[in-house]
């Protein structure tokens, strides 16, 4: 089939690109509300596809009132008190805390990967084991973790660590291996020692790529975090979503899902901007 021109070489202009890129969003939103309206006409009690008003009420409620299983607020509480005691806020804080711990635990993984890539003895010592570890399906370990570490915070964070750490270690390892040997030799001829080479030459060069690798693995981190929260937790965004499923609280579930997506997007954006600001020399290959 031919249009008389090559599709590869026809580029939309700015306005067209903007319009085209938003079409699917509009179609999706439109389709949802159309179906939702139709279902509510047939059955005003419909809980599967809440209307905007219902979702708005659900979220206003979630962001100004404590959860049902939480202590109730006095009636004269200020808006600020209400916000910080609300279900949404407490869930977000709980999930964020676990998320930050897991991201911090990736730092040792990066350092281990760097040392494995740079020092052959360390590499030989760890590589086979990490490769093996990488093949274990982390979620299958969840019951074991709950048995060993109990169902509190530790087991959830361990799940994330076990799930994501091997990937980050191996990624850093490969990135370190990818640094041209000339650079390392050059550093030694300039009088650097092993640790200068590791932290002042190699680490700084791979830092932007490591950050990108962590960014790509944010999804995996969230996946393990949500799995842990849904199965065994008493707070957190995923716990709430799982809990509301029992009484079909779609008016809160859908905004929660979008809220998580927004948060993840913001984290990703922050990391992207930070990466660009911290490493102005970095050229995306």
């Amino acid at each position, binding site marked *: 089939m031919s249009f008389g021109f090559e599709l590869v070489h026809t580029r939309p202009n700015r306005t067209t690109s903007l319009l085209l890129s938003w079409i699917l969003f509009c179609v999706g939103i439109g389709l949802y509300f159309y179906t939702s309206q139709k279902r509510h006409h047939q059955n005003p009690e419909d809980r599967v596809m809440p209307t905007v008003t219902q979702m708005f009420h659900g979220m206003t409620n979630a962001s100004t009132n404590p959860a049902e299983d939480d202590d109730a607020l006095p009636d004269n509480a200020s808006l600020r008190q209400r916000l910080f005691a609300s279900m949404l806020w407490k869930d977000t804080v709980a999930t964020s805390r676990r998320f930050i711990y897991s991201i911090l635990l990736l730092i040792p993984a990066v350092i281990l990967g760097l040392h494995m890539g740079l020092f052959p003895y360390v590499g030989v010592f760890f590589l086979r084991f990490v490769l093996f570890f990488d093949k274990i399906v982390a979620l299958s370990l969840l019951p074991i973790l709950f048995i060993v570490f109990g169902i509190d915070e530790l087991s959830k964070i361990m799940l994330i660590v076990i799930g994501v750490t091997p990937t980050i270690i191996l990624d850093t390892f490969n990135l370190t291996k990818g640094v*041209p*040997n*000339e*650079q390392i*030799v*050059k*550093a*030694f*001829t*300039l*009088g*650097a*020692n092993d*640790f*200068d080479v590791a*932290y*002042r*030459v190699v680490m*700084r*060069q791979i*830092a932007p790529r490591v950050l990108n690798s962590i960014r790509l693995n944010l999804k995996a981190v969230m996946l393990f975090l949500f799995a842990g929260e849904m199965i065994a937790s008493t707070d957190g965004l995923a716990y709430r979503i799982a809990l509301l499923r029992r009484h079909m609280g779609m008016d809160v579930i859908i905004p929660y899902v979008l809220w998580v997506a927004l948060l993840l997007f913001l984290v990703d954006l922050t990391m992207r901007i930070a990466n660009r600001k911290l*490493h*102005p*020399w*970095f*050229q995306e290959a």
Partner: protein
Amino acid sequence: MALIEVQNLSVAYGAPARPVLTKISLSIEEGEFVCLLGQTGCGKSTMLKMILGAEQPSSGRVLIDGVQHNQPDRTRGYVPQKYSLFPDKTVLHNITFGPEVIEFNCFSRFTPSYWRRRRDIREEAMRYIDRIGLHQRDARKYPHQLSGGMQQRVAIAQALMTRPRILLMDEAFSALDPGTRKDMQRLIRQLWRDTGVTVVFVTHNTEEAVYLGSRIIVLAKENPDAGAEVAMDLRVPEPCHEHQIPVLVGHLERASGSAREPEAVLATA
């Protein structure tokens, strides 16, 4: 005692050992500008790596000032063809990297003496930037913002900042266009004269070797399966005028093509 002493050096790679260099003995005196010349794949870069200490020989040894060095260190500066600068550091930081890592480890970088010393190092680096023909404002640029020739200029300054006695250059100008290359050759000749550093320069370009070197060592293989040996070892008469170069190149290429008679070439030179 010569500055670089290569004794009976043999190198072989691979599981059924494939010889690259066979029983090479050389001695290089302080202040020489030695060009290692040879065709692609004849082992001249391997030879340089042996002097550099980045790889170990199968047998034989390399002595630097009478001492065997098993890994690269600051006695020998190095300028490779590619990846010669740290991409994450500005031109100024690239040049000051050597003195900084020698004098200060990761932790002493937070002491006042570091800040005082760093000013001096920076001043010296700026003098080098002038000397290699860059603008002061280039000091803040990153390597990817410079042309290939500029990058190699910075790499030479970076290597010379630590005042090595030996400078090893591996096809350092081979990726540059002819005009830039000529400038670079002039620059390195000048720096060699000014600093008295001993240079070992690997190249596959006869003209470059004749123009630069005070001594040319040609590596060649008897047959494809054998390791390379020193086919010719000759001194370039000094001063060598530019108009003599084509003649010398002709002699050299004819000689390395047919019988390997160093004396014949020396006589004509």
